[in-house]
């Protein structure tokens, strides 16, 4: 990563000072120059005053995983100078705000150190404290435009789009940007050896985060009830749903809402609301993160045991306890797969990026209603809150929601007796009726022991009949849920098979390409749903070396594979990364190479 359209920048600032808009501006400018780009926000659990970083990766080849090395570090927060200097790859560049000195002890001979007094420039140019703080961000963006050879026209257009309606703001932003640009030019190094050159590789793409995409999925799937309790990193999902609803779900005549969003008193209540609404026949969902999932456990078991559809978006963060709320992880896998006490098993979907968030969100509602059960969409902070470059979403107007087996008054007429939990079709899915129907369609939901007629029971056989049906039903979901995605090295199985999940996908496929370049043939299989599709078993069987790459300490995906497929645990090598940052390809490459002997070159 050290050339044209192949490098990474890391910007260190202080949170709450408005750097997000400048970072977004840079991302957007590169994207509009047709060059694939991705951004990772590494932020603190705090509102103002703590260090925050933003990493931008530019990759003409289209790799969007978190960069393995940083070519240019922009150090704007003296509190993190030491950390920032250390991060520059040998031969790379450090740009710091020379309003404040850089400790001589931090100097490195193997990097280029550049200083621009951004703070001072802004103090001279602007009157108000607030402007000086905010515009320092646009000032460094201007400097980066010069250093990285971004097209000024593109940046001007972006500024106009943002501030066009407020001329004084537009003028100030323009001044700040130009000031930074000129200051960088004066350094005499522009453009740097690594920089951006216009391409045509983003024409069909968008920049979007996974929470927005999940919300869009819920909107298009026809969800009408959303219940939630605020929690990072899930909050923006419901906020996005609300803003979509305000745009698309207002009755044009009465101005009344065709949706209900309830901010509940806690996650227990959010789960209860969603289950009540699902029982009543609405498509309902909640968005939460690990702590919320912990609180919802009892309710999840109720919905499972009583065949009630509900969709849960779990935007995972670092646990346990409060953990690191602004860091990413995939450590809820076990607690989702078997959520609640007693024998349970749940359908869990694992999107790898925002586009899949959209697609799997829609599927989650279909699966929930078809299988009459809770369905989880396991996203994570990296997918949920960072902007990803993905192919634009499309919609097929012929789509109709799969409401599953719901008997209406007419259908009820045709049957002798309605037994809520009778497996008439042998697929474990019993037909339901919705409240409001009455008559012989009325039945009683109970979380206590019930028989196939929904009657109370303490009879061993009648109880087992119901729980065995549930097991059959969920097993059947393995083929209906999205199949795993294979990225094959060639027509025959490669020596090494990497199994991965969710947002690790980009880094793992990049690692496979890097390993391939070093002469190691690697196949990648990305699991997209639990319970596992039969292809997962086949992939393991057909690879001599199997590694499972995931972001948690305890190799949870590997544990699930071992338990569910009966594969001996030690047959699968665990490659684990759980410090809270998105995975990089280098971590995977190093781990695979470390397997050492036995891995054919």
């Amino acid at each position, binding site marked *: 990563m050290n050339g044209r359209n192949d490098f990474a920048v890391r910007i260190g600032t202080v949170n709450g000072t408005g750097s997000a808009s400048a970072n977004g501006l840079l991302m957007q400018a590169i994207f509009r120059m047709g060059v694939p780009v991705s951004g990772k926000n590494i932020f603190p659990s705090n509102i103002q005053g703590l260090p925050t970083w933003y990493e931008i990766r530019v990759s003409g080849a289209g790799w969007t995983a978190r960069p393995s090395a940083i070519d240019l570090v922009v150090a704007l927060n003296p509190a993190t100078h030491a950390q920032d200097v250390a991060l520059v790859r040998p031969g790379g560049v450090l740009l710091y705000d020379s309003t404040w000195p850089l400790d001589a002890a931090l100097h490195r001979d193997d990097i280029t150190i550049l200083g621009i007094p951004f703070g001072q420039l802004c103090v001279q140019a602007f009157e108000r404290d607030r402007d000086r703080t905010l515009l320092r961000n646009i000032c460094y963006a201007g400097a980066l435009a010069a250093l990285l050879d971004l097209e000024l026209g593109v940046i001007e257009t972006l500024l106009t789009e943002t501030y066009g309606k407020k001329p004084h703001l537009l003028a100030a932003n323009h001044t700040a940007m130009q000031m930074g640009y000129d200051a960088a030019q004066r350094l005499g190094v522009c453009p740097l050896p690594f920089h951006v050159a216009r391409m045509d590789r983003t024409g069909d793409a968008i920049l979007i985060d996974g929470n927005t995409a999940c919300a869009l999925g819920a909107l298009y799937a026809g969800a009408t009830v959303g219940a939630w309790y605020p929690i990072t990193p899930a909050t923006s999902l419901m906020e996005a749903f609300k803003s979509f609803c305000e745009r698309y779900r207002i009755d044009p005549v009465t101005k009344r809402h065709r949706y209900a969003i309830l901010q509940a008193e806690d996650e227990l*209540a959010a789960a209860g609301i969603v289950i009540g609404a699902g029982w009543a026949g609405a498509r309902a969902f909640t968005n939460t993160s690990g702590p919320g999932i912990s609180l919802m456990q009892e309710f999840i078991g109720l919905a499972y045991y009583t065949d009630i559809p509900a969709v849960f978006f779990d935007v995972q963060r670092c646990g346990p306890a409060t953990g690191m709320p602004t860091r990413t992880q995939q450590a809820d896998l076990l607690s989702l797969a078997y959520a609640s006490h007693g024998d349970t098993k749940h359908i869990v979907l694992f999107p790898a990026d925002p586009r899949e968030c959209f697609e799997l969100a829609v599927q989650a509602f279909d699966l929930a209603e078809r299988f009459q059960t809770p369905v989880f969409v396991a996203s994570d902070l990296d997918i949920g809150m960072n902007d990803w470059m993905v192919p634009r979403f499309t919609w097929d107007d012929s789509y109709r929601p799969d409401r599953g087996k719901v008997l209406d008054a007419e259908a009820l007429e045709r049957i002798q007796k309605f037994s809520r939990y009778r497996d008439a079709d042998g697929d474990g899915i019993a037909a339901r009726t919705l409240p409001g129907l009455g008559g012989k369609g009325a039945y009683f939901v109970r979380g206590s022991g019930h028989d196939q007629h929904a009657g109370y029971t303490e009879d061993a056989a009648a109880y087992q009949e119901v729980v065995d049906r549930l097991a059959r039903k969920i097993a059947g979901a393995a083929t209906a849920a999205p199949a795993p995605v294979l990225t094959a090295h060639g027509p025959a199985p490669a020596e090494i098979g990497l199994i991965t999940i969710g947002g690790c996908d980009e880094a793992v496929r990049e690692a496979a390409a890097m390993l391939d370049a070093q002469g190691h043939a690697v196949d990648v299989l990305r699991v997209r749903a639990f319970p596992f599709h039969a292809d997962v078993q086949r992939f393991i069987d057909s690879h001599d070396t199997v590694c499972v790459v995931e972001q948690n300490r305890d190799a949870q995906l590997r544990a699930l594979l071992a338990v569910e497929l009966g594969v001996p645990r030690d047959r699968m090598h665990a490659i684990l990364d759980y410090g809270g940052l998105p995975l990089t390809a280098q971590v995977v490459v190093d781990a695979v190479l470390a397997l050492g002997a036995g891995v054919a070159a």
Partner: protein
Amino acid sequence: MTSIAKPPVRHPSARLNGLGLALRDYEGAMSTLCAGCGHDSVTAALVQACWELDLPPHRAAKMSGIGCSSKTTAYFLKQSHGFNSVHGRMPSVTSGAAAANRGLICIGISGDGDSLSIGLGQLSHAIRRNVDMLYVLENNGVYGLTKGQFSASADLGSRSKRGEANEQAPIDPVLLALALGATFVARSFSGDKQQLVPILKAGLAHKGLALIDVISPCVSFNDHEGSTKSYAFTRAHEVEAVHADFIPLRHAITVGEGSEPVQVVQLHDGSSVRLRPTADDYDPTDRDSAYAHVRGCQARGEIATGLLFVDETGKDMHDFLHTVETPLIDLPYEQLCPGAAAMDDLMSRYR
């Protein structure tokens, strides 16, 4: 077993209501509660109230948590859907069902353990949200189903069956509801069907959450000497603070019958209640007055009963949510999905 089907016999002379249904049509499975349990009387009063109201059984949704009290949703309205959920969480499940289908008539049944301990938060927030529902809290001062531990409504000094006195202050659902802004607050006694039935009917007709705290003695664990939730104690200390008559829509309202002061409150569906407070300075349409009166009774060792407070002008959950009149579950998918053209348009925002 908690549900034993009753033989479907109908007496030829059974009286029919406006929907052509007999009282039996509003009953449910045979109760399996202890003989004499107060909860069974509440069930009977509910059957009576629903029958008299001509309540269409198919529109009702019977909601409950866990406890002996919560079991009773199986014992009435057999032609209605019911949901016996988890302990203390009936209010959230009901909120969801009511949000999805505003056409449902939600009847929530709970206990003092279910609502005042594990579910205190959910009760409080259902009141804040003002979910349109009847909320019957069958209050016996103990956890019946787990065999007689004190609940949070146990009065100071009330003795358990084994003789221990409760030393912690009780939570009074009536005072709580008044403080939280509930728009319909009542207290009654399972042994006083005359009083309970009209209150249930008014609660069903009320727009918003109607909380009815019903003292409902537990004969197995809290009906002894020394208990303040026994039949004997309740009979001796109950003071009707407000007498309520329910006047259905089809009856003309004749105000000012007799000599006592009467207040008539028009309910959401056009029916009304006629309130006769027993004290001159008590206005059951004034929250502060109701609160003061209930506190005053409490200080005198009296249990204030009746329809203690009603405000029919409050906003309910659907008002807060600005939802369309059509139940959300009945909206056609075409009104919910923006479609492909909108998607194309939307995508340009992310370029």
